[in-house]
C-alpha cells in the first residue's frame, strides 16, 4: 500500500536523520565540554585524593547545593587529567540537621577516611559541632554555605559565602543610602548562633551609624507569621529586614500582603531570598518592592568563571542540582582547592601540607565574587564582605547596585587587617 510504504520510509528517513542529528550534537557537545584542571580530556587514573564535605541536606532546608557544584567540578577535573594525574574521590555526608549525626559523619570523614580537606560544607549545625574537631585534626575546610557564628569564628574554616551578618548589613547599608532608612526591624529565627547573633551584629552596626535596629525573633516552628509581622510593625521601624530562609520569607511577605503594608515600609532581605521560584511565589504585588543582597555575583553574569560554572553544571551536575548562590559558592570553593592542589607535588599531597597550602591562599580572584578571597591564619574568617543589590520583579531579579563593599563598624578592622597582611593584594 503506497500510503504504508510512504509511512515506513518516512519513519526510516526520520530515524536516520534523528540519529545523525544526535551524533552531530554529541560531537558538538564533546567539543563544547568545559575544560577543567589540566584540560587534557583524559580521565585521571592515579591514586585518588580523598576530599570530604558535610552538608545539611535532609531537614528543614537543603544546604547541599555547594557540595553538588563541587562534585560537578571535581568530575570535570577527574575527566581532564585530575590533580596531575590523581583523581579526586569526593565524599559528601548528610548531617540531617542533627548534631549527633554531624559529629558522626565528620569523624568518619576526618578520622576513618582520612580526607585531606573538606570543601563545599553547608549546614546550620555541623560547624558548631565540628569546628574543634577540624582544628584538633588540622584539617582545613573551604565551606560554601556558612550560616552560623561558629562557622565564621573557627580557626580551620573559611567560607566563600558571606553568611547572614555581612549580607544583612550590606542590604541595610544600601537601604540607608537609597531609601532613607532610619530604623530597622531585624526579623529572624530565634536560633542563638544564627538569627540572634546576626540581628545583634546588624543592630550594633546600625548603632555605629547613629541609627537603630530592633530584633524581632521567633521560633522556626511558629505557625503564625502574622503575629511576627504585627510585632515588627509595633517596633516603629521604617524598614523591615527579612532575614529568613526563602520558604519562611515568602510566608512572611504573604502576611504583609494580607495586611496591605507594602507601601508603608521599606522591605529588604539578605541572600536566602535570592532563590529561583521566589518572584513567582511572591507574585505581582511585590514587583519592584523588595531589595535583596546577593553574596556572590548574579547567576546570569557573563564573566569567564560565571560561564564556566554554568557549563560545568550543565555537563557534570545532576539536572535537579540547584543553580543558585550557594552553588556558585561551592564551585568557587572547589576551584580554590583544585588550584591549590595543582601547585603541589602529587606525592606531597597529605593533610598537613594541604591545610598549610590552603591557609596560605590569598588574593584569590574570580568574577563570581565581588572581592578577592583569602583563607589566612586567624581565629575567625570573613573574607567575603562585598555584594550586589537586587530588586525583585514579578519576572525575576534586577540589579540595582553592582558590587559594593560593606563600610564602617567591624568591617573597618577587617579591611585594615587585609591591607596590612596583603590578603587582597591591596597593600
Amino acid at each position, binding site marked *: 500500500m503506497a500510503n504504508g510504504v510512504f509511512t515506513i520510509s518516512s519513519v526510516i528517513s526520520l530515524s536516520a536523520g534523528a540519529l545523525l542529528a544526535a551524533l552531530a550534537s554529541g560531537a558538538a557537545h564533546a567539543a563544547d565540554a568545559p575544560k577543567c584542571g589540566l584540560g587534557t580530556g583524559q580521565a585521571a587514573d592515579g591514586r585518588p585524593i580523598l576530599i570530604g564535605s558535610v552538608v545539611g541536606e535532609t531537614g528543614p532546608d537543603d544546604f547541599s547545593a555547594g557540595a553538588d557544584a563541587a562534585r560537578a567540578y571535581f568530575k570535570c577535573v577527574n575527566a581532564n587529567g585530575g590533580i596531575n594525574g590523581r583523581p579526586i574521590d569526593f565524599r559528601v555526608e548528610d548531617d540531617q540537621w542533627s548534631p549527633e549525626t554531624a559529629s558522626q559523619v565528620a569523624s568518619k570523614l576526618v578520622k576513618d577516611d582520612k580526607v585531606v580537606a573538606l570543601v563545599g560544607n553547608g549546614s546550620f549545625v555541623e560547624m558548631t559541632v565540628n569546628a574543634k574537631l577540624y582544628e584538633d585534626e588540622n584539617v582545613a575546610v573551604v565551606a560554601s554555605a556558612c550560616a552560623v557564628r561558629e562557622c565564621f569564628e573557627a580557626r580551620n574554616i573559611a567560607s566563600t559565602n558571606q553568611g547572614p551578618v555581612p549580607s544583612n548589613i550590606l542590604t541595610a547599608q544600601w537601604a540607608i543610602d537609597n531609601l532613607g532608612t532610619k530604623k530597622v526591624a531585624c526579623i529572624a529565627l530565634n536560633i542563638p548562633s544564627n538569627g540572634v547573633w546576626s540581628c545583634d551584629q546588624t543592630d550594633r552596626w546600625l548603632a555605629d551609624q547613629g541609627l537603630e535596629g530592633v530584633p524581632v525573633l521567633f521560633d522556626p516552628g511558629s505557625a*503564625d507569621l502574622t503575629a511576627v509581622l504585627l510585632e515588627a510593625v509595633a517596633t516603629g521601624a521604617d524598614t523591615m529586614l527579612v532575614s529568613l530562609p526563602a520558604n519562611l520569607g515568602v*510566608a512572611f511577605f504573604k502576611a504583609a500582603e494580607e495586611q496591605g503594608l507594602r507601601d508603608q515600609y521599606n522591605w529588604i532581605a539578605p541572600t536566602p531570598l535570592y532563590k529561583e521560584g521566589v518572584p513567582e511565589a511572591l507574585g505581582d504585588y511585590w514587583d519592584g518592592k523588595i531589595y535583596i543582597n546577593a553574596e556572590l555575583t548574579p547567576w546570569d553574569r557573563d564573566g569567564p568563571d560565571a560561564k564556566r560554572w554554568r557549563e560545568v553544571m550543565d555537563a557534570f551536575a545532576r539536572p535537579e542540582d540547584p543553580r543558585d548562590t550557594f552553588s556558585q559558592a561551592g564551585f568557587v570553593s572547589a576551584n580554590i582547592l583544585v588550584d591549590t592542589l595543582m601547585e603541589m607535588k602529587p606525592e606531597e599531597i597529605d593533610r598537613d601540607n594541604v591545610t598549610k597550602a590552603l591557609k596560605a591562599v590569598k588574593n584569590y580572584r574570580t568574577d563570581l565574587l565581588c572581592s578577592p578571597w583569602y583563607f589566612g591564619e586567624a581565629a575567625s574568617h570573613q573574607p567575603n564582605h562585598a555584594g550586589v543589590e537586587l530588586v525583585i520583579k514579578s519576572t525575576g531579579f534586577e540589579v540595582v547596585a553592582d558590587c559594593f563593599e560593606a563600610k564602617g563598624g567591624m568591617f573597618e578592622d577587617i579591611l585594615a587587617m587585609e591591607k596590612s597582611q596583603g590578603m587582597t593584594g591591596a597593600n
Partner: protein
Amino acid sequence: MGAYGLFLVNGLAVGAIYALSGVGLVILCRATGVLNLAYGAIGAAGAMIAWQLMQYGCPEAIGWLAAIGTATLLSLAYGRLIAPHLSFREPVVRAVATLGFAIMILSLMNFSWVEAPRRLTLATDAIGLSILGMRVTGTRLIALLAAVLVTLAVALFLAATQTGLRMRALANDRDLAAVLGVPVVSVETVAWGISGVIAGFSGMMFADLVRLNPTVLTFLVIPAVAAAIVGRLESLMLTLAGGLTIGVVESMATLIRPVAPFRAAAPFVVAALLMLWYQRHRRLTFAGRD
C-alpha cells in the same frame, strides 16, 4: 485595646484551625480509640496535591476537591487496611503506628516536592474586612466560622444519629458494643472518613494561613493534639475552646517581650496546665488511683 485587639483577632483565626483539627482528632479517637498523629501529614498531602493541580491551571474548586478527596482516601486507607490489625493493641501502640504512617506520607511528599518557596493563595484571601485595626481576610473568617459550625455539626451527629450513637457506644465499651451488634468496621470507617474530610479542609486552611511546606504542615498536628487534650479527647466543645485559647495565647504572647520568642510553646503550656487542673482531686493510693 489597640494592639491587644489586633493580636486577639489574629490568634482567634489560627486557633480556629487548631480547634477544627482537634475536633477531627476527637471524633476519630472517640469512635476508634486511635489518636491519629498522621492527621497533619494527611492534611498536608491534600494541600500539596491541591497546590500542584492549581499550578497546572486547574480551578480552585478542583483543588479543594482534590485536597479533601486525597485526605479522605488516605485516612480511609489507614483506617481500613492498617488500623484493624492493631485494634486490640494498647492505645499508645496504635498512636505510634499512626506516627509511622505520618513519616511515610511526609517522606513521600519530600520526595515528590523538593524544598522550594511555594505559596497557596485562595480566592477568599482577596476579600476581607477590618476588625479592631487588623485586616481579616475571608479565609480567616471562614476558618473561624467552620470551626464553630463543624463542632456543632459533629456534636449533633453524635447525639442525634444512629451512627453517632454507635460511635458513642464503641467509645464507651468497645467489646460490649461489638457483642451487642454494633457493626464495628463500618462505624469506624465512617469515623475515619469524617476525620479525613476535616483533615483535608484544615490542611488547605493551614497551607493558606501558615505556609505551604510539608514538614511544617505535618507537625501542625501538635497544637491540634493539644487542643484535643484540652477536650480530654472526648468533649468537642472543650476542644473548640482549647484550640481557640491556644491560638490566642500564642498570639498575645507576642506582646510580652521576654516570652515572645518562645510563644511556639503555647500548645504545650496550655495542655500541660489543663492536665494538671483536671487531675487536681486525684491521689495515688496503694491500689492505684482513688
